[in-house]
């Protein structure tokens, strides 16, 4: 028996798209600029998907129903940007690419990370052929640490970091299910 490494990912979206995702296996791919670029985005726990649901209700008054879904994300071909050695190599690749593109330093600073990732994936077949899922940590400065962490001396634990997965290939998503229907 071959074991396939996978995690359970959580995705929040509107009901219709989630129904299409669950019933017809149609992924919900978006283009993001400040995160991981193109892909279908997943959290690694339900609480973060619930947080996202609250954000969506807050920002989009026209939405009354949201679904929280879950699926198995196959991570055998993952670009893990939480691994510092991987991130450093990725940074070197960007430096070489941007140098060849002729980007000036100030231009370089203005390109959002999601677009840097998309540019590298568009150009280097070695990336697009090998990596179908990208993982990162998101820093959420606006979130307050729980008292048990914040008020404990020398505590190294924080709530301000969240794990995010972007799946660039729908073949890496399986067993989509409805976890919760959320009404406004």
């Amino acid at each position, binding site marked *: 028996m071959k074991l396939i490494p996978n995690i359970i990912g959580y995705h929040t979206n509107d009901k*219709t798209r989630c129904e299409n995702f669950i019933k017809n296996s*149609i992924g919900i791919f*978006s283009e993001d600029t400040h995160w991981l670029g193109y892909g279908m985005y997943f959290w690694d726990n339900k609480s973060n998907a619930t947080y996202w649901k609250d954000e*969506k209700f807050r920002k989009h008054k026209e939405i009354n129903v949201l679904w929280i879904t879950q699926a198995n994300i196959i991570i055998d071909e993952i670009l893990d940007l939480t691994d510092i050695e991987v991130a450093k*190599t990725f940074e070197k690749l960007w430096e070489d690419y941007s140098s060849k593109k002729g980007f000036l330093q100030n231009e370089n600073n203005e390109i959002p990370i999601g677009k840097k990732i998309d540019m590298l994936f568009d150009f280097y077949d*070695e990336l697009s052929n090998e990596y179908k899922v990208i993982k990162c940590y998101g820093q959420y400065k606006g979130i307050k640490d729980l008292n048990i962490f914040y008020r404990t001396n020398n505590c190294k634990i924080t709530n301000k970091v969240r794990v995010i997965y972007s799946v660039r290939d729908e073949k890496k998503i399986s067993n989509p299910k409805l976890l919760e229907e959320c009404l406004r």
Partner: protein
Amino acid sequence: MNGLLKALQTSKEMSQERFNELEKIKKLDKKIYNFNYTDNFFEVYLNKDSYLTSNKITYTNVLENEINKNLSLAV
């Protein structure tokens, strides 16, 4: 990390001329990347192919039925 290391090695060994040539072949020299962040809940791609051809679908309640039809056709 093999793919990443291979990409880096390829990149380091690539001449500027070859880089420019590949950009043209892949049509990346003319590709415009949108750097402006818009948290648009209603825009999605169907899959990688639709992303590469910039075939983004705008999703609104009014167009819901039409889009469902398109999604069915895409399957």
